């Protein structure tokens, strides 16, 4: 019998699970910071030069060297970095001369907004398309969906971005151009979340909301198209696998219609791998889509990290990497919780 022999109250077991989860989180986080920190220090890049420039005097160089704490042994440097990190101090970006945390809080919402809308589009269209393709395998709908998908992951994103801008912005004028807002509208709404759509909605400023949306929709659609192609392909193959199972035949024998069988019996069984795929695709987008952000002059995380890398701005690179790591950890956690929700076999123990 399930569970009946397990000791301890449910509350205690829940607390145990939370503790073990937090412990895992802490270990993962320490590991993440350690790996990024040591890799950044092992590169040949001289962080001092990035600060003082290559024309600085020896005295200025030495002063900066000491100020950065580089005279300390490497493990010590890591501990100092870790302690600062825990108090929210990511150091100052050489490039922007602002605290890295401030920078990240500025660029991440832009990426978050883009990635979220793109993923919503990808899921809303990709999942039904994949299910449809699997249910009509080998027929017209399947072929059409597969060709659209194939196009989605074979065309380079920057090309699609440029063509999209040319057609929908340049020729048709249906959407706004690069950037997050028209200059006219910038810095009007108070920054609360940094996500312009929510900030403007909170203030009830629908004019700005509409403008932000018209800027967002094209890059989000293009990114969404890629995640759609991936999600649809994976959904199709998960569904084909499930539709060949015996319990599908059993459901049909009971008198279920074909489509009810597809959605009501097969679909709930692909939720675990589907959540994994969606989570992965979302995490990848949250990392920042450099090419898309470049084409659309979108001031997001990808652009920020790339620029920091090219300028040896190590604090910014480290901060960005840790943020990306934290995003992955969070998404894994949410996926884990969703697995339990969707699959009863994972609930016990």
């Amino acid at each position, binding site marked *: 019998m399930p569970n009946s022999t397990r000791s301890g109250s449910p509350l205690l077991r829940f607390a145990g699970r939370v503790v073990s989860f937090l412990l895992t989180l802490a270990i993962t986080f320490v590991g993440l910071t350690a790996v990024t920190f040591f890799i950044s220090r092992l590169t040949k890049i001289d962080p001092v030069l990035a600060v003082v420039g290559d024309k600085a005097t020896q005295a200025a160089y030495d002063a900066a060297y000491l100020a950065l704490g580089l005279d300390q042994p490497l493990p010590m440097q890591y501990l100092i970095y870790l302690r600062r990190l825990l108090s929210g101090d990511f150091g100052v970006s050489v490039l922007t001369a602002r605290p890295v945390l401030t920078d990240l809080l500025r660029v991440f919402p832009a990426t978050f907004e883009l990635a979220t809308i793109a993923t919503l589009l990808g899921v809303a269209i990709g999942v039904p398309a994949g299910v449809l393709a699997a249910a009509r395998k080998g027929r017209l709908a399947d072929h059409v969906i597969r060709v659209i998908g194939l196009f989605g992951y074979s065309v380079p994103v920057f090309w699609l971005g440029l063509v999209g801008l040319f057609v929908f912005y340049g020729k048709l004028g249906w959407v706004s151009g690069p950037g997050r807002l028209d200059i006219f509208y910038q810095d009007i709404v108070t920054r609360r979340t940094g996500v312009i759509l929510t900030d403007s909605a909170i203030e009830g400023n629908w004019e700005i909301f509409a403008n932000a949306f018209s800027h967002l929709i094209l890059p989000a659609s293009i990114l969404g198209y890629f995640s759609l192609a991936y999600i649809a392909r994976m959904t199709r193959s998960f569904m084909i696998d499930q539709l060949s199972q015996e319990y599908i035949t059993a459901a049909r*024998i*009971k*008198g279920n219609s074909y489509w009810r069988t597809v959605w009501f019996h097969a679909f709930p069984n692909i939720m675990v791998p589907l959540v994994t795929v969606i989570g992965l695709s979302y995490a990848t987008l949250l990392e920042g889509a450099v090419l898309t952000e470049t084409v659309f002059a979108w001031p997001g995380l990808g652009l920020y990290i790339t620029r920091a890398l090219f300028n040896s701005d190590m604090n910014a690179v480290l901060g960005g990497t840790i943020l990306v790591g934290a995003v992955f950890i969070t998404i894994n956690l949410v996926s884990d919780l969703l697995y339990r929700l969707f699959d*009863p076999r994972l609930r016990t123990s």
Partner: protein
Amino acid sequence: MSDTLLKVDDLNVTYPTRTGFTHAVRNASFTLGRERLGVVGESGSGKSTMGRALLGLLPRSARVTAKTLAYEGTDLLNLGERDWQHMRGRRMSMVMQDPKYSLNPVKTVGQQVSETCRLQLKSDGKDAKRRALAMLEAVQIRDPDLVYGFYPHQLSGGMGQRVMIAMMLVAEPDLLIADEPTSALDVTVQNEVLRILDDLVRERGMGLIMISHNLTMVSSFCDRVLIMYAGRIVEECRAADLHNARHPYTRALVAATPSLDARREELATVVRDPEWLK
């Protein structure tokens, strides 16, 4: 005969393959009343394919033809999708081999059994639950209220198969096709499940088609037996007469049955005669 449930005349099932056609069922003809009919034969002899053809459940690529394929006078060959939905579950149903695969892993026992009531009897939630619980009791599940909320992975094989039987019989069909209903179960629970199946079929006066490898079981359980070889019915006889069968294939099958009484160093194997295929 007015009591005929199923009339099959010259049923053929073919699958297209790269090299031509595979003839899975050839010229099968039989009629079934409210009786228990066994179908035996080796793997690949077409027993299961025939069973699924009767329920219209073969893959789209299969070509099913027959002179007659009728259930209580309803032509099954040209039945539309909607009509099939009322035929399956309600009038004929099927118990499949392994409950590990034939129950939906993410739906509770209750959801799966009551679904049949909702679909076939148009029961509302309360009525469906009441019927499902009564049915679980009928298949001798000790604590139906508890098991109602279980998921398939929480059931033993024997319990799973009883849930399967409950799910397929709750809408009171007149014909049940049992496709090796016990071969995935432990020997100790096989008899128990068979007995439950037998009781229900008897009580309700249903027709039963029992597809099986197990000659002993079929001969003691059924009234009549069809023996299939390479897609055709090579012999039909009364179950009690199985041991006096005429066809050499049937005799070879019977001879290959191990027995506890007679010590044998080696089991007899079936020596195939190409004549059988003609």
